[in-house]
């Protein structure tokens, strides 16, 4: 890893170098009624729009790789013949400016599933390859439990990572592309004092991480507690609305639908991001449904993320960003669900 220090005043120069491409970054979306300031990722043209001091975006950045709706093929009919056209949707390089560690780790988890041979997802892969990612240290919220998921720190998956140190930025250069872009900027070598400031920042962030999930032996405990009654209570509350999966940076399940255009001359196969909490997720031919009750659907979402994925990849399919819980109207949060499974009962149930 190459460490450098960038004067804060140089950040705009860096931004200008990148903004010739389509650039996505955190922007403010106004206050919620409870006073929280809301943020989301959006296309940014001026550095003034960029809110690098954001807490957490409402939605994750996954749509830039996994659009909510995506045509996986267009079929052009002519007579009794047809031609298939495929567009991976990577038309231009994309700069993601200001992703937190959790969201970068989410992409690393998606990579493990979606880029793996023998059936990599070319739509995801093409977009991922055409992406330049700048990480930025975060301002944890009371909902964040990334440390419990081992996702509070970035080791790879982005081109460089910025940590503000007062007037300076501590820069971790993580790709040769980033190294070459940074060459034209006024960088200096970090001093011992910078290293110390970097560690102080990390400590400060750590102190703000108050939510926790005890992941010790979790795969085994989930196996043991498969029939736990806590799932009934969480199922009773669940709206089966799919919001948790839509805002989740790692949920990648989808449905496919073939549609024919009104003029019958064109067709398309459309992929729609879906959620295992939706009523018909496990519905099969003949109308049979493996998970007709919301409690089993909700349970399987947890089992996929915190048991099945761990067994397959040695890590959970969760980065502890807290979006699912923050956006769940019924207030179903990962820390509370996991704690209730361990306890054997739901508090305030």
């Amino acid at each position, binding site marked *: 890893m190459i460490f450098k220090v960038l004067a804060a005043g140089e950040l705009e120069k860096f931004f200008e170098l990148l903004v010739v491409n389509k650039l996505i970054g955190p922007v403010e979306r106004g206050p919620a009624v409870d006073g929280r300031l809301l943020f989301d990722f959006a296309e940014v043209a001026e550095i003034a729009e960029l809110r690098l001091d954001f807490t957490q975006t409402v939605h994750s950045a996954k749509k830039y790789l996994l659009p909510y709706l995506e045509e996986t093929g267009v079929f052009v009919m002519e007579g009794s013949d047809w031609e298939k056209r495929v567009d991976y949707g990577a038309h231009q390089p994309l700069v993601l400016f200001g992703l937190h560690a959790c969201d970068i780790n989410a992409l690393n988890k998606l990579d493990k599933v979606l880029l793996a041979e023998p059936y990599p997802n070319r739509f995801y892969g093409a977009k991922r390859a055409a992406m330049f990612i700048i990480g930025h240290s975060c301002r944890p919220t009371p909902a964040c439990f990334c440390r419990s998921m081992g996702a509070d720190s970035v080791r790879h998956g982005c081109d460089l990572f910025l940590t503000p140190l007062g007037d300076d930025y501590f820069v971790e250069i993580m790709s040769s592309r980033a190294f070459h872009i940074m060459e034209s900027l006024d960088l200096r070598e970090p001093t011992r004092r910078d290293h110390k400031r970097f560690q102080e920042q990390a400590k400060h962030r750590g102190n703000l991480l108050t939510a926790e999930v005890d992941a010790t032996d979790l795969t085994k405990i989930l196996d043991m507690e498969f029939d736990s009654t806590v799932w009934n209570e969480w199922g009773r509350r669940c709206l089966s609305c799919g919001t948790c999966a839509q805002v989740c940076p790692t949920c990648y399940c989808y449905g496919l639908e073939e549609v024919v255009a009104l003029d019958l001359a064109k067709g398309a196969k459309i992929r729609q991001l879906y959620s295992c909490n939706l009523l018909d997720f496990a519905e099969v031919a003949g109308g049979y449904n493996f998970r007709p009750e919301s409690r089993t659907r909700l349970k399987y979402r947890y089992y996929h993320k915190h048991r099945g994925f761990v067994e397959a990849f040695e890590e959970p399919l969760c980065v502890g960003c807290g979006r699912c819980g923050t956006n769940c*109207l019924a207030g179903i949060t990962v820390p509370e669900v996991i704690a209730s499974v361990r306890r054997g009962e739901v508090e305030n149930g």
Partner: protein
Amino acid sequence: MSDAKSYLGVPVLRPRVGFFELTSCEGCQLQLLNNEATLLDFLDLVEIVNFREGMKESGDNYRIAFVEGAVTRADEVERLREIRRNAEMVIALGSCACFGGVNQLKNRFNDPAWVKREVYGEYPIDSQAAVPLAAVIKVDLEIFGCPVKKEEVERIVTNLVLGKEVKHPKYPVCMECKAHENICLFDLGEPCLGPITRGGCDAWCPSNRLGCWGCRGPAPEANVDELRKIVARKNIPLERLLDRLECFGGFGGEADAVRKELGGLK
């Protein structure tokens, strides 16, 4: 317009269709005429023999009848039964036809005679309780919405013509609302029936910053009890939830239960 249509070389029969209206604003039918970009393709796909809003001619030789509106008069009952006799397939078009729609609000008053007097005065008119088509005849397919979403009707008609299965989304409005990355209206202090209302509208209202009023009726698994708790936690008066639950008739049972608790009418 050609009479012969084909799909991948296989001839496709253009079905003869009729559009009819009972008690309604005829706004659902207007939706179909509204999008000029696809109107010609739509007209090319079906053979319309009856469409008061769109043409002068009318005929009774149709296979598929799209019926908009609620049934509120004795002559409408007769007319609907006749449509059922003529058509192989009857499609309820829009919330009035599916649930009674806005018209069924009048059923919510204790004294129907008072409602009639307030609206029509001494003018003699037959006006009964508003009911959906299915209360009078067998309905083969429902297309929800106030108004219906033109793109959805076009997709359904395309599937009917091709003999493909017509499926409605089973997820609630939230799913499509999140795909638009809207800020949740509850976060902005407004009530919304999105979590319990059937999706498929592409979150039309919430995407325009209007909380859902439930025009498409309940999703197949609508957790109304939990939504009531959420509304209470957000300090939104139950009456505001009731306004929405009873507006289009899809949540009739749930609205009755809430009203009873509030000690209201009926």
